[in-house]
């Protein structure tokens, strides 16, 4: 099977598997909504304050929801042995990882991006700010999935893997968080925010280039 067809087959397979466990997908979105709803309760419902912290809070909540979904990326396949079978295929392992993280992004990043504007309205964000929020999430969430895939692969089957995953991945997420929430805050402050968006895109290109290869190396380690 050629690499593009293998890639497409992996994406299709993972999407089907995700669809069979729709409840799991919903958990991430519900978690995102819950975290975002806790902030107004904790610091008070003053509209001006909420509009100011909104972009940052929503971005942090997206990152936490993404972190929650990361173990699912390889864990199920690793436990039932299908990851080993996938590695045995003649196509490069990085293509397999790229397919899996594309499916992971489609099932976590996209729903979060679609739900975010609703919460943005609750935080009183303007419409152009909401648009930038969606744009920054659209560019930022694939980076989160790609960087996270390296962490998920490294902690596969490790003692206290999920705690460790947070420690490994959250510092790496910092730049995405800063530029993502920065782009939204810039628009809210009357600037264009395109500079931050370009930097997000640059980070995305860099990670997409390196992450599948490094994650594939890490996955092979877990299998051996």
């Amino acid at each position, binding site marked *: 099977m050629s690499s593009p067809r293998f890639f497409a087959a992996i994406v299709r397979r993972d999407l089907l598997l995700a669809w069979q466990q729709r409840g799991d997908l919903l958990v991430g979105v519900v978690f995102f909504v819950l975290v975002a709803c806790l902030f107004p309760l904790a610091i008070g419902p003053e509209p001006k304050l909420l509009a100011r912290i909104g972009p940052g809070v929503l971005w942090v909540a997206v990152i936490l929801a993404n972190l929650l979904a990361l173990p699912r990326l390889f864990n199920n396949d690793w436990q039932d042995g299908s990851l080993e079978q996938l590695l045995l295929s003649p196509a490069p392992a990085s293509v397999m990882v790229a397919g899996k993280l594309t499916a992971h992004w489609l099932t976590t990043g996209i729903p979060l991006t679609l739900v975010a504007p609703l919460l943005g309205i609750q935080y009183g964000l303007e419409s152009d700010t909401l648009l930038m929020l969606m744009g920054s999430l659209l560019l930022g969430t694939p980076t989160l999935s790609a*960087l996270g895939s390296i962490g998920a692969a*490294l902690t596969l089957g490790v003692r206290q893997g999920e705690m460790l995953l947070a420690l490994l991945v*959250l510092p790496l997420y910092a*730049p995405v968080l800063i530029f993502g929430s920065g782009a939204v805050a810039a628009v809210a402050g009357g600037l264009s925010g395109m500079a931050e968006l370009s930097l997000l895109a640059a980070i995305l290109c860099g990670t997409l280039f390196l992450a599948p290869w490094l994650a594939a*190396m*890490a996955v092979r*380690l877990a299998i051996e």
Partner: protein
Amino acid sequence: MKPSHNGPRWLNLFSFASPMQFYPLAGRLIPLFMVAALLFCAVGLWLGFAIAPSDAQQGEGYRIIFLHVPTSWMAMFIYIVMAFWSVMHLVLRTRLSAMMAQALAPTGALMAFLSLLTGALWGKPMWGTWWVWDARLTSMLLLFFLYLGFIALTRSIDEPDRSDKAGSVLAIVGVFNVPVIYFSVKWWNTLHQGASISMENGSSMASTMLIAMLLMSLAAWMYSIATCLSRVRTLILQRESRTRWVKERIAQEEK
């Protein structure tokens, strides 16, 4: 398992990539580096605390710079060295390289921690606060977390081979991220907080201050090498505990 000797032994550097060859060499080098560290430290501290003039703006409080700057430099430099050994491990598949990376990590974490701590102690009297979300402070904090992640990952995997390779992959990912983190935090600050407190007061530094600081940096360097080598020796003994040369060596030392 004898390495091939083509020419004089000291020329054949690659023979030291074998843990068996490296163990005694490291043992001989540790005292040298430790003595050098103590010497540099003694002279540096004397120059820094007794001879150097007090600062025009900051009085005596600035003297913590002699600990703060060397530890900050080492914290950043050690991560790069760690990534270098990790690349060596993944490319040349030498076990010793991965051990070097793992031996460096605790020293790097210590340096990052000391840099944060001395920075906080310095910041309180000078800026009136323990902590500012300044670019340098925040990126150093994240670097500290990167070290902790590396240590936690390598320690929680029991198979040495997997632990080595996993650590190497993580160190390489981290070294790409360190500049990204640094610049992102820098731009984040300059874009949204206006001018924050600048730490660039080194330009008008007296030459004795500079020399003292460089001596302290050399001391930190020597100390890091010495601790790293001694940690590598422990790692070698752990990993090779089943081999004959380790058993013979331990039997010899027990006599």
